[in-house]
């Protein structure tokens, strides 16, 4: 019984039907994902269609989204199993060596996309000329930064990521006597001056009381940013310091003092601090003579890594990224009249897999063609002799 079931599953997994159905499903997904990008932005569409096990749809009548189509994750997983089964099933003869290599390469290619989907972290680093930066920041995720600014030479940064803010409740800040009571969190909002006659703000301290806030639906489009805002009440030593409004739309940090230490509050893009720093020495934006067509962008960066006792200059330019400590830094954008350089930073532990796959598949195809060529030459020879 078990054996027949196992052999049935095996037959199913290695069948051509499954291959074709899965390839067709993948094609549908690719089409849907491409079309959805117009509305949802590339990242949103990829997350919904490709980097999920099911494509879910929210119906008005139901409280939760229900799966309506297999997602890229599921199709990819089954296709990988199908490929592995097929690869194992291909006769292990030299005649099939090429096909073996090709399919093994494809398995690795899929594995690479899985690793990228699960583990790739995209961040960026904006540096102005002359500035030194030792952190990368997220494109979308935000954090509430509580910074101890008492010492002018040294900032002690504590941060609360937006995922924690959205849960609400009391959040103790480790290493400080402060506990933050999250009163209300807005993933996206619009701020305006509080006009007379409008209901009063929840905020009681800082600039908050003069500001009206409206919740907005979150945006997923690549070039739009959510304006996250939060009402928080810092409590320390049993004393409340009032309710503050912190928002992406409020640039200047607001601060309060507790027992001689000054803490500032600000919403900002989620940062990850690095054990090394980059100083932008020069940014170049070359254009073709007499036009605005960009010819090259490059950033000359001083990399300083105290732990490695390293300090060197690196030129990052188009098609020439810097791979450093597991992260890759690419010239992505610029601003402020060519004095600001934006590097996109990618951390993907599986970045080598596609290269391995590419070599295997190319090798496999060459081997296969060589075998086929030899076979057909032999056949022709036999025909001649006959």
């Amino acid at each position: 019984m078990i054996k027949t079931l196992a052999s049935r599953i095996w037959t199913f997994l290695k069948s051509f039907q499954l291959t074709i159905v899965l390839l067709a499903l993948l094609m549908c997904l690719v089409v849907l994902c491409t079309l959805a990008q117009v509305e949802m932005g590339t990242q949103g569409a990829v997350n919904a269609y490709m980097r999920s096990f099911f494509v879910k749809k929210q119906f008005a009548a139901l409280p939760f989204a229900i799966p309506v189509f297999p997602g890229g994750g599921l199709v990819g997983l089954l296709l990988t199993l199908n490929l592995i089964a097929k690869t194992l099933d291909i006769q292990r003869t030299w005649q099939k060596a090429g096909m073996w290599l090709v399919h093994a390469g494809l398995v690795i290619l899929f594995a690479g996309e899985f690793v990228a989907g699960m583990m790739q972290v995209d961040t960026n680093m904006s540096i102005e000329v002359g500035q030194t930066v030792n952190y990368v920041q997220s494109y979308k995720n935000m954090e509430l930064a509580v910074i101890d600014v008492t010492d002018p030479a040294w900032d002690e940064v504590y941060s609360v990521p937006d995922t924690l803010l959205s849960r609400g409740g009391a959040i103790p800040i480790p290493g400080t006597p402060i506990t933050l009571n999250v009163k209300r969190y807005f993933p996206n909002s619009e701020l305006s001056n509080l006009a007379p006659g409008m209901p009063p703000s929840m905020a009681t301290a800082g600039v908050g009381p003069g500001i009206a806030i409206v919740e907005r639906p979150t945006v997923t489009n690549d070039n739009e940013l959510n304006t996250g805002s939060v009402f928080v009440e810092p409590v320390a030593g049993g004393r409340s310091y009032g309710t503050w409004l912190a928002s992406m739309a409020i640039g200047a940090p607001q601060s309060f003092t507790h027992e001689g230490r000054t803490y500032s509050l600000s919403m900002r893009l989620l940062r990850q601090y690095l054990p090394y720093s980059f100083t932008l020495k020069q940014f170049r934006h070359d254009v073709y003579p007499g036009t605005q067509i960009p010819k090259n962008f490059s950033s000359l960066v001083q990399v300083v890594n105290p732990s490695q006792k390293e300090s060197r200059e690196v030129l990052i330019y188009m098609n020439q990224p810097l791979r450093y400590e597991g992260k890759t830094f690419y010239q992505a954008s610029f601003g402020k009249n060519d004095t600001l350089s934006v590097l996109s930073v990618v951390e993907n532990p599986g970045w080598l897999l596609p290269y391995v796959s590419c070599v295997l598949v190319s090798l496999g195809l060459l081997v296969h063609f060589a075998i086929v060529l030899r076979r057909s030459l032999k056949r022709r020879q036999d025909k001649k002799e006959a």
Partner: protein
Amino acid sequence: MTFVQKYLAWGAGILALLVALIFAMPGGKVRGFDAAGFGNIPILEGGRVKPLDSVARNSLLIIHSRQGFRYEGRTIGPDEWILDVMFRPQVADQQPIFVIDDPDIIGLIGAKQTKNRNYFSFADLSSHLEEIQKQAQTAQPIAPQKRTRFQSAIVNLFDRAFLYYKLRNTLQLAGSPGLGWELQSIGDAEASARHQDLTQLAHFRILPPLPGANPDAWKSIGEGLQAMAAGQGTHPALVPLARLNAAYVANDAAGFNQALADMNGVVSTLKPGALSHATNEVIFNRAQPFFVGLSIYFVAFLVLCVSWIYKPELLQPTAYSLLFAGAIVHTLGLAARIILQGRPPVTNLYSSAVFVGWGAVILGLIVERMYRKGFGTAVAAAAGFASLIVAQNLGTEGDTMEMMRAVLDSNFWLATHVVTITIGYSGTFLAGAIAIGYAIRKHIATKVDVETDKALVDMAYGIICFALFFSFVGTVLGGIWADQSWGRFWGWDPKENGALMIVLWNAIILHARWAGYVRERGTMVMAIFGNIITALSWFGVNMLGVGLHSYGFMDQAFWALTGFCLSQLVFMAICYAPARFWEQKPHTRA
């Protein structure tokens, strides 16, 4: 094939090549003026040094959709036209070269339907320029995909009128006594304002860099005059240019030709090599190899069609030799572009169409050598013709040898990723074309010819394998390039998805065939669908206007693309038509 037939066939091919050669010959003088020589003068525009002839042709293409026009019973070529625009605007302004199709715009400029229907001169437009500018400025901030038809048309008209206006004011301010007068009145009270205008309106820079200056530092007339007014000396090219201007206005052909020789002397001392590079490009412009190529393909296709009913033993080789001649012209054109631009063959949508056609023709020639049934010729000629027509339509937006944006500026990746992926397109299209031929033949042929059918299916199958190989390798190479420049191997960007679709579809066809789910007819239907997939991933994804690859955005082609896809669906239906339409018995799954 007899001896005579063989020579007749190859004679046709050689004749086609001779016709192509005639195109490359320089034209005669215009009213005694060496207009062609004037077109040879190198200038800097759009980031590269090119002959004035290229500026003239591209501007005329943008404004008029053609490289020449008839006026007062004469054909006016691009070089003569630009001479008039720049030196005798009062003449050029009367020539009806602005094509306006949109009825709302014709209404806006209050034009009566002239006998030249939709052709208007700059003089016709001049009293409405303010209104056109006002309307265009309200439409410009709207994203191109979201503009209404009127808005697109008014922005387009404004761009064309502005281009004309800039050309008119590049070498002299239109309406002023000319460049010679500018040189004499360099210290005038109003001179600096005029220099300012000339600098701002200059469409190109004609003064070569002086010795010791940055080798890219070409200057416009306005900048040259500003430098002169600031006491930095007279640029040596200003004087012969002023003489060219004066001689042309005074209708003094001998003086003009002498000034042109002096100008060439100045250019070759200041920028050795620029003149010969410009001359080569002018020869390429004049030869119009892709236009000539598509005409030869068309003739080859017609000859082949005739061969099926009349004298096949003579006409089939003739068609083949014509196709071969077309391929030679096409290849030379492609090679010339590569040399002139210093880039691999595919750098933008236009050149991708040229290259896709070239790939299909070369594959078709090989297939024809192998099977000798005339099908390779027919399909290759049709594919070459169609893709060059597409290229001609894509090439109306200006210089097709534009500079590469920073991220694309990598000859290595352009030569590997872009070329392989484009060969993949060629293969998929050729397989689809063969399948269409198969479908039509099945319905038309009176007798069952199993052998030919099998040969066609074999051709299509082989080409699909070939296309899968190239599109897969090309896609992976693209992933590696993306990893090098954007930091991820694969981002599900629309263009990447398009490439993936072609790979997936070809893989599906092959697996379905290997598993025995489809036979002859099924493979062919699937191969035709490959045309739709390829067209969508080639052009369709650019219309979405999202993603990192959308540097080739275009909106006008939407309906053409829709029409193409519908036509392919019809062909699929024809290929799959009910069994009673087919001579042979329907397939059984035995």
